[in-house]
């Protein structure tokens, strides 16, 4: 158990981030906080991929001419996550744009207040 904690603690971070992100998305009434929760959730997945690339005593995967020099950490998950981060940024931008629109129309970014406003429509 102790060994698991000392060697695989990044996976505990993953679980914590996924849990916190999901909780904030569900529990918060504030749309901006929901979006922050979504970002935290995605970050959990990023950390998961990066952790999977780790190799004890692994070096950065730059192969010298002539080859050799391993072991290296796996470069593939890092490239994937670079892409996923870009996707995440675009999603956040669109989401915040929608929140701005909601605020302009209803004057609130709170889910409960919004329901009250819409009930009067």
């Amino acid at each position, binding site marked *: 158990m102790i060994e698991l904690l000392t060697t695989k603690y990044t996976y505990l971070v993953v679980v914590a981030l996924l849990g916190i992100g*999901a909780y904030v*998305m569900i529990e918060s009434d504030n*749309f901006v906080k*929901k*979006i922050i929760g*979504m970002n935290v*959730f*995605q970050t959990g*997945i990023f950390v*998961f*991929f990066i952790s*999977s690339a780790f190799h004890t005593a692994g070096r950065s995967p730059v192969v010298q001419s002539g080859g050799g020099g391993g072991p290296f950490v796996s470069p*593939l*998950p890092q490239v*994937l996550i670079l*892409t*996923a981060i870009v*996707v995440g940024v*675009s*999603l956040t931008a*669109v*989401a915040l744009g*929608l*929140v701005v*629109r*909601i605020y302009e*129309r*209803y004057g609130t970014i709170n889910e409960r207040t*919004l329901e009250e406003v*819409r009930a009067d429509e």
Partner: protein
Amino acid sequence: MSDTLLPLLVALPLLGAVLAVAAGLASERAAAAVTTLVLAAQTGLAGWLGSQAVLDGPLSVGVGGFVAPYGIELVVDGLSAAVLVLVAVVSLAVLAFATEDAPGGTAFYAQYLLLVTGLSGMAVTGDVFNLYVFLEITGLATYALVASAGTGRSAVSALKYLLFGTVAASLYLLGVGYALMATGTLNMADLATELAAAGYDSPLVLASFGFIVVGLATKTALFPLHTWQPDAYADAPDSVSALIAALVSTVAAYALLRLIYTVYTPAFFEAVPVARDALVAFAAVSIVVGSVLAVTQSEIKRMLAYSSVSQYGLVVVGLAIGTPAAVFGAVVHLLGHAIMKGGLFVAAGAVADLTGARTVDEYAGLADRFPVLGGASAVLMLAMVGVPPAVGFAGKWYIALGAVRAGSWPVAVVIFASTLLTLAYFALLVERMFVAPASESVLAATDGGRDGDDDTDALGPSPPSASRPSRRALALVVGAAVVAIVLGVVVTDLGTALEPTIDTLLSP
């Protein structure tokens, strides 16, 4: 030679989106013209490459000269060809309606083409991570299109859709991560052999399957993961509802089929029967609950949206049962549902433009006033219920046949029950349209502009502007009805064309 043209299926609409923005600087009509040209070219390309794939076997190409399994591979087989052609044809057809219905703006056309990019990409890719990227491109374009109605409601629905869609795609990505950890590869064909080598009962493989199925089922909108979908369909502009109802969930369901049969292969279901049983049960619940929820709706677009929840349940049941007949039925129903539901949403949009009618009660007497529109809609509704010879019947028939042959009697009962429920809500609507006395909004629309004294409050947000349905909308609805029947009649030919593909998919 035609292999090397595969990347164009993605590049063409992507480039077109940029061109549309550039042309939009001159005028909005120019942007619309560019979009139409690009989609026409895309339709031609998809049709040509698709026929090559069906006649000469699958096409594939490694993008950028990186050889699979290290690089990203694009693959077109019979199944992806069918989906590609569907995406191109439906988006071109709906564009004709969108140019006259939608709020427009240059951004609308760019988003429209980006959506086609994402959907085509999902259909051609042979790489699970690449599929994630296209899933998100599709998602981003869809959220923006839903919000393009410009109303507060549409923004709220789009945000809800975005939160659900992002979590769904993230879960899919997590599943891809588990598969990558188990095998070290992302290429679909390579994953199939590597996953088998890793052992189907390995916790990593099981976890990846679970996350991927839940992620894609949310995108497909199966109960209870459907809650984003009715709001998004109901609050989007009418043309966008037609487009996304016809294509977005359809391509997500295609991705689910592709992942299950190309990546996990039927051998996975043999090794882990509980995975198949769980998927069948999940989808069967979706069929029943979706239909029941549809019966309780009074707003037309919401009713159609809940009906989709049920129909996709049917598709997933078919692909989970996994006999050749059931999988073929799932594919036929997937394509047929896209045509029928797209046509019905266009009809709902045309009726709303004409009369402002958006609820079942307001549809009363519609067919008397607009016989062609009403008649074609009724044909589509009956096709959806599964009246032969329409495609709705063919799809359900093959799925039920597959279920019976596999010995899944409860599933056959569920399919029968759902047909009765589908009949319940569509028959009610048909009865309203053809038998009930005309509603106030229908009367007002046919008064020729001489307003009565009681029609100002009852009307929806879009007041009646014309006394006849637009030619384009009418052509689309009638066209969809004709295609729904023709597809049903030629379904055996479709079966012959798709047989090699489905045999390859189902071979262990």
